[in-house]
């Protein structure tokens, strides 16, 4: 039996030859062999009781999986717009020069592969890159030759970490050069707290009372959509099903968002406490943390935290002596797909299939993971829930605004003095936040990431809240030195790359939108191209199947609305009477060549 065959058989066996664990299987095959070879699709399918094409379907979906042989070391340079503005393109050039290869290529000795990847959640210390699971931040072109030399001598990327970052980043189980950059702690999430006080309190109440408390607190989901958490738990509790599940959404894929990274580093216990409270409230025995592939460096630490909680009877059977309350958690690794942050995609991915979203009737609270009632919540939502149980729903509801209770954790990045994490009460004005972050000469702020809104100074007096400026955490600042349409273009590129392709408007519409925006940016667009962008953008929003396509035209629609003069300056009328994108000289070139003479009317 060849080595490949025995390796694959071993991996499949470790996951019980279970097709529902296909994600874990192909992730491990990728790690072990440097790719998931096409010749192995059939074998994996047989071992995991599925079909060859299903394996291909999964492998071809996730950016971190490849059917082509990659180096033992894969460098993924973050290609987010924030990183570009901080110089990532020059860093990329330096990598190309030092390695002697282009992007999406592998060195001749087969050792190192170079790729680009969307936001890796390090925008506060950009430019950054992943070297396998290791994060390297604050890059400059000057640092690259040395880094590459070190990697060639010693392929262990962890050896590149000279000095670990602050807080738990220095923990031996993380040991990353990442910094938390916590700029302002608030009363709810980043304040000092009594560990497990919330859980102990919950266990003195009935599950229904716990749900009532979370409802009274007015807690709304922190992942972006803002659904009432207590209500979601109640629906999950009431839904019929022998088994129920608690899922923690740690996919954090929205560019410019990195607050869950910091919570998983500094508040892992609080996240797990919140999940345990949710499990008690809805009657679940199994939990899953869906951890984005980019945060693989946190996996060992999280697993250790889970183990410690098992030993302390905070997870496992008869939690804290509470007869009949059993709950345990596993980690599901993602593999580079933004759409997997959408809750139904996340569930598909946990079930071992490609991350296509599914229809939201029935909703996951009725039929979610393994067709069972499932509560999916964001990392920060679980933290809030644990604190609410400890300090009381009234305390929580008294913070923030009438329709947005509590505080929000923001990740601020881009053109400002103090990028990092700010815990602010809801209702805080954007202008005030910008001042605290040391942002001057601001032309535009993207609130909520590419799927959110690009706003200008006229909107700076709005508050951060569900009712005014809503965000899952991302706040990107752009100074008046930046080209706002370059930002919009980069965001459209992101959506084109990340669309799952399931539905027509998102699969095709985003490509058409991006192409037309490029035309306008080149200065060969006209007024009617702006109408085209508006109408097409509205159709994509209106008809797309999931939240990705329903928000993907926002970079264009919000800039058309808030930065119209920028567009108008680019589409000034032209005098020739032809479309501006039409070049008559070029058009007659070939005919002139055939005729052997130049055009009488159109010539240079």
């Amino acid at each position, binding site marked *: 039996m060849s080595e490949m065959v025995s390796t694959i058989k071993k991996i499949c066996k470790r996951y019980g030859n279970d097709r529902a664990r296909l994600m874990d299987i192909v992730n491990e095959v990728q790690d072990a062999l440097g790719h998931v070879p096409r010749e192995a699709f059939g074998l994996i399918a047989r071992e995991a009781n599925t079909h*060859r*094409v299903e394996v291909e379907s999964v492998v071809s979906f996730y950016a971190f999986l490849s059917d082509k042989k990659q180096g033992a070391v894969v460098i993924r340079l973050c290609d987010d717009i924030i990183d570009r503005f901080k110089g990532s393109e020059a860093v990329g050039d330096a990598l190309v020069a030092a390695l002697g290869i282009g992007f999406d290529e592998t060195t001749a000795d087969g050792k190192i592969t170079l790729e680009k990847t969307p936001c890796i959640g390090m925008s506060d210390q950009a430019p950054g890159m992943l070297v396998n699971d290791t994060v390297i931040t604050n890059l400059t072109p000057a640092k690259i030759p040395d880094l590459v030399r070190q990697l060639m001598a010693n392929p262990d990327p962890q050896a590149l970490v000279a000095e670990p970052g602050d807080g738990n980043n220095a923990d031996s189980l993380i040991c990353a050069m990442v910094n938390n950059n916590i700029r302002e702690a608030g009363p709810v999430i980043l304040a000092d707290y009594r560990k497990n006080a919330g859980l102990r309190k919950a266990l003195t109440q009935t599950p229904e009372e716990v749900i009532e408390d979370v409802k009274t607190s007015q807690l709304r989901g922190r992942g972006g959509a803002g659904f009432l958490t207590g209500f979601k738990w109640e629906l999950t509790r009431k839904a019929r099903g022998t088994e129920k599940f608690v899922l923690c959404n740690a996919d954090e894929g929205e560019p410019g968002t990195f607050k869950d990274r910091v919570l998983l580093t500094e508040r892992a216990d609080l996240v797990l406490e919140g999940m345990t409270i949710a499990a008690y409230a809805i009657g679940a025995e199994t939990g899953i943390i869906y951890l984005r592939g980019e945060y693989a460096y946190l996996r060992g630490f999280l697993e250790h935290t889970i183990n410690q909680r098992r030993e302390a009877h905070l997870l496992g059977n008869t939690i804290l002596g509470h007869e009949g309350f059993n709950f345990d958690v596993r980690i599901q690794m993602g593999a580079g797909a933004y759409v997997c942050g959408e809750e139904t995609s996340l569930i598909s991915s946990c079930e071992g299939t490609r991350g296509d979203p599914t229809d939201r009737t029935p909703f996951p609270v009725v039929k979610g993971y393994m067709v069972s009632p499932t509560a999916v919540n964001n990392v920060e939502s679980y933290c809030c829930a644990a604190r609410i149980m400890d300090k009381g729903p009234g305390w929580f509801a008294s913070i923030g605004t009438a329709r947005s209770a509590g505080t929000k954790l923001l990740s601020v990045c881009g053109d400002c003095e103090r990028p990092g994490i700010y815990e602010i009460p809801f209702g805080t004005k954007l202008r005030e936040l910008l001042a605290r972050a040391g942002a001057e000469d601001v032309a535009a702020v993207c609130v909520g990431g590419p799927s959110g809104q690009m706003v200008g100074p006229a909107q700076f007096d709005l508050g951060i809240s569900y009712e005014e400026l809503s965000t899952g955490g991302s706040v990107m600042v752009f100074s008046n030195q930046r080209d706002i349409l370059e930002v919009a273009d980069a965001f459209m590129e992101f959506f084109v*790359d990340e669309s799952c392709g399931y539905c*027509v408007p998102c699969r095709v519409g985003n490509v058409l939108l991006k192409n037309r925006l490029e035309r306008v940016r080149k200065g060969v667009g006209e007024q009617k191209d702006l109408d085209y962008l508006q109408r097409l953008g509205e*159709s994509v929003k209106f*008809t797309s*199947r999931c939240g990705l396509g329903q928000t993907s035209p926002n970079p264009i629609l919000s800039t058309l609305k808030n930065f119209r003069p920028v567009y108008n300056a680019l589409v000034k009328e032209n005098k020739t009477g032809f479309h501006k994108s039409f070049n008559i000289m070029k058009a007659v070139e070939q005919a002139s060549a055939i005729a052997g003479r130049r055009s009488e009317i159109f010539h240079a």
Partner: protein
Amino acid sequence: MNDTFKITIDGKEIEARQGQTIMDAADAAGIYIPRLCSHPDLKPIGSCRVCTVVVDGRPQAACVKPVMDGMVIENDTPAVLQHRRNIIDMMFVEGNHFCMFCEKSGNCELQALAYRFGITAPQYPFQFPEKEVDGSHPDILLDHNRCIMCARCVRASQELDGKNVFQSIGRGFHRKIGVNGEKELGDTDMAVSDRATEICPVGCIIKKRVGYEVPIGQRIYDKAPIGSDIEEVHP
């Protein structure tokens, strides 16, 4: 429990039953909602979005959205029709559709929808993607140029043929229909008698050697526009 109730489509009150989709209820009442990925013998998946309607102010795919008592639905409004037309145009420009030379012409649901919507040319620029043609199977041709990713073949193979010949692979604009064989369709257990062979709404999956058995001019949509069969039903 009484499980029939009324819903309203474009101001017309119709009967609906618990468990029906909006499309089921509309069909039964003789109201045609345009569609492509949906097929009466298959589970609906809501991928083409041509059936988008407005339900109580929010867009929904009629083929997957279950009816609820008292629903108010907009189907035939200028705004909804425009969105649908835009989607149909998108399908034309994302592939390579040469209707006038296509064996499926006249039986093609995409072409028929375009006619129903009065589309003579798409408003978006053609993307001219490079697509594969797989002629490896002795009896069946798979021409990805004309695929609209409706996944009818995927579902038909699983749900009706008890096989697993097709599945989506890749993502985004590069998504395509993959086959369950080492390389090509010829490596799979697909048979010409499979339902998956004849369920393609366009000319992507085609039976070899029978392309012109029915002459152009005498084909399904040469006789009546798509949707007429539904509109003829009067409850």
